[in-house]
């Protein structure tokens, strides 16, 4: 699973959670806050992304994340780790 694939997954979830946002507005350097997400929207995007990727990561792991890319990185790292351990 590449970082690009994880970003694709996250992107689709972002537009599902934020109805005012179009796919082409979601670029990886932006923060979810920039796109109008409140704290619950952000938590929901993380939870739904984990479910879609079949990952279970403590939410604390995302505490330091500043933009979408940071979130995608945490998800990708954990995804790679989970694939390797299987």
């Amino acid at each position, binding site marked *: 699973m590449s970082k690009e694939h994880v970003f694709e997954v996250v992107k689709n979830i972002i537009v599902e959670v934020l*109805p005012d946002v179009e796919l082409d507005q979601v670029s990886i350097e932006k923060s979810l806050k920039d796109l109008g997400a409140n704290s619950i929207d952000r938590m929901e995007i993380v939870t739904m992304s984990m479910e879609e990727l079949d990952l279970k990561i403590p939410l604390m792991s995302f505490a330091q994340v500043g933009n979408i890319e940071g979130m995608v990185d945490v998800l990708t790292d954990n995804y790679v780790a989970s694939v390797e351990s299987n």
Partner: protein
Amino acid sequence: MVTTNKVGITGMGIVSSIGNDISTFSNSLRNGTSGIKQAAILKEPKVSVDIAAKIENFSFSDSIDHFQNVSDKKYHLAKRLGRRAPFVIQTSILSALEAWCSARLYDGKILPERIGVIVAGQNSTQNYQYDLISKFKKDPEYLSPRYALEFLETNQVGVLSELFDIKGEGFVVGGASATGNVGVIKGSQLVLSGIVDVCMVVGVAADLSPMDIQGFINIGAMGGKKYINQPEKACRPFDKEHEGFIYGQASACVILESESSAINRGIPFLAEVKGSAFHLDSNSSANPNVDGEARTMLSALSQAGVSVSDVNYINTHGSSSPLGDKTEAEAIQKVFKNHTSNLWLNSTKSLTGHCLYSAGLVELIATVEQMNKGFLHPNKNLEVPICDDLQFCGAEALDYHIDVAMSNSFGFGGINTSVVLKRG
């Protein structure tokens, strides 16, 4: 309560099995269109009664596009708040939007602090939770963080206050099958006491889980067994073959407003809430009580300052429950005595099913529509009345002029409510 002001209804909205706006609902009432039918049972385990008046073919996104006079900002906010929300929140948003528009509250003449919101609904997240349980048992980590907001009944207060910029009082009321009337009574009191000028009262659609339905079957309250193959005949208020209530779904909203505020905004009362009463039987069980119901009707008349002979229509609780119908009929005879021959009765539940928490509001709206459009809707399936001395509407609508109406709602736990309306 000392007051010189009056309270009335200045806006109404509905999403129901017989119409997703007031005008369609009103036409269905006049035509005697019933929303009761065989309902597809999609969930496990299957319950034995599959007759209901459900809100069907409902799409939040499509419905929200129909509103005019809603600013772009409010439209987007409504979409954002409702698009992914549970069904009951979506229907509340829509009925509230229609009521808000019909009361022309978009004129912005009332300070947000002078507007209140009452959500008349209880246990509204039962089915939502039921659907989540199996997934939750498997992967609790994937539970939506929004759940912590959404399982709270007050979520509706939050959603509606944000959408309509309401900053006065806001809370939830419950009163079993009388919940809608309890909301109207508390809303009227808020307005009459001067705490707010306008109060939005939203009756929440009952989204029952299979467990809730089975509970109603097991306690003997739900009908639908005798007419299992003829669902349109299953709900028969005050008919000898009645056997229990038939479940219905609706969200219904009224805007209550003080007379001075309505005059100030140049908006007429659709009807005046002339008086109301709310009395308990001190009874934890499901059985109704003649004295309690009679006391409540009398008390509502007294609060309204009208006599029994002024009332010429009652929208009965009439749930099609054998004991409930019999008790209400006796209570009406006890209160109205010889005047019953000048008094027409019907039960909106014969068309909408029993909308539980929102029933009081659905029926208040039905009363206002009949009052303002000069008719009485049919009392479907009333073939052999349980008593001869009350005047029930029959299979066809009647042209009729209602001056003063009473709308009754009674609930499990000895909860009795009556609201008296006068033409606006």
